């Protein structure tokens, strides 16, 4: 990881990957969603609403994945002082918050016809809502650190690390507590071909998750490049202002 601590080296790699990730991820996702909407069969129990899962499951995965990235980057910032870690954490926050919100909204749209309710205070739903609030708080903390001008993002990093305790709570909520939400259907068993889910849904969900993940990667890289460029512009202008002041 420290090989990419040099911003110039990171930028070379990021410039190479950003557009391909967005283009390939976008086309792949659109193709999978078109199949999910028009080609996938309706499910015996859930009927047409099963199609919502091709948006809902990747959104849930990326909502949790985004915070996992924030936690790893925060750990890297606090322990190893990796210079790009706080930039990576800040870049992942807004996309992560978006996907956590998309997960909640699409879950609600699935729940209304399937459960007869837009919302229930269930362990899985509530812990996902808490994750969205954690994202909002993280965005506010990181923004405040940048606006204060001293660039100290340690408080946001500690918050990012502590907030990670919610990720296993979300994952195990359907096992620990009685829940309307179904238990995990995709796990290691799915990869070895022993999933309880019908193959056409399982492969569709995996394909949709891959497409959205490629898009997420492209968005995070674009946002990292944006933050890095802003920092470089600011430090150049500050240096020039000091040179004028000295002259």
């Amino acid at each position, binding site marked *: 990881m420290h090989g990419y601590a040099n911003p110039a080296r990171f930028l070379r790699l990021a410039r190479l990957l*950003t557009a391909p990730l967005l283009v390939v991820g976008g086309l792949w996702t659109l193709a999978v969603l078109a199949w999910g909407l028009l080609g996938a069969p309706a499910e015996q129990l859930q*009927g047409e609403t099963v199609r919502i899962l091709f948006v809902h499951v990747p*959104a849930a995965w990326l909502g949790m994945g985004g915070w996992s990235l924030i936690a790893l980057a925060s750990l890297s910032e606090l322990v190893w002082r990796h210079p790009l870690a706080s930039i990576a954490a800040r870049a992942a926050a807004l996309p992560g918050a978006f996907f956590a919100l998309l997960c909640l909204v699409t879950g609600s749209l699935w729940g209304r016809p399937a459960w*007869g309710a837009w919302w229930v205070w269930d362990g899985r739903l509530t812990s996902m809502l808490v994750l969205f609030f954690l994202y909002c708080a993280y965005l506010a903390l990181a923004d405040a650190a940048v606006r204060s001008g001293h660039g100290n993002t340690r408080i946001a990093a500690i918050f990012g690390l502590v907030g990670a305790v919610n990720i296993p709570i979300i994952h195990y909520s359907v096992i620990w507590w009685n829940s309307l939400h179904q238990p995990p259907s995709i796990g290691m068993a799915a990869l070895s071909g022993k999933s309880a889910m019908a193959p056409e849904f399982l492969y569709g969900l995996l394909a949709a998750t891959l497409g959205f993940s490629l898009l997420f990667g492209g*968005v995070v890289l*674009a*946002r990292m490049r944006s933050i890095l460029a*802003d920092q470089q512009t600011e430090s150049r202008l500050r240096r020039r202002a000091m040179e004028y002041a000295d002259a």
Partner: protein
Amino acid sequence: MHEGLNQLAFVYAAYALGVSGTLALVIQSWTAMQRAEDRRERSREQ
């Protein structure tokens, strides 16, 4: 389902939100990156 809800209306709403929201996120991130990198190049040339 007991109320005779049109399931496809919920499906279309979820897809519309998913696609339009993701597209907006991608466009906003890309344009912010382009603007920031343009500002950096201008500051280098000045």
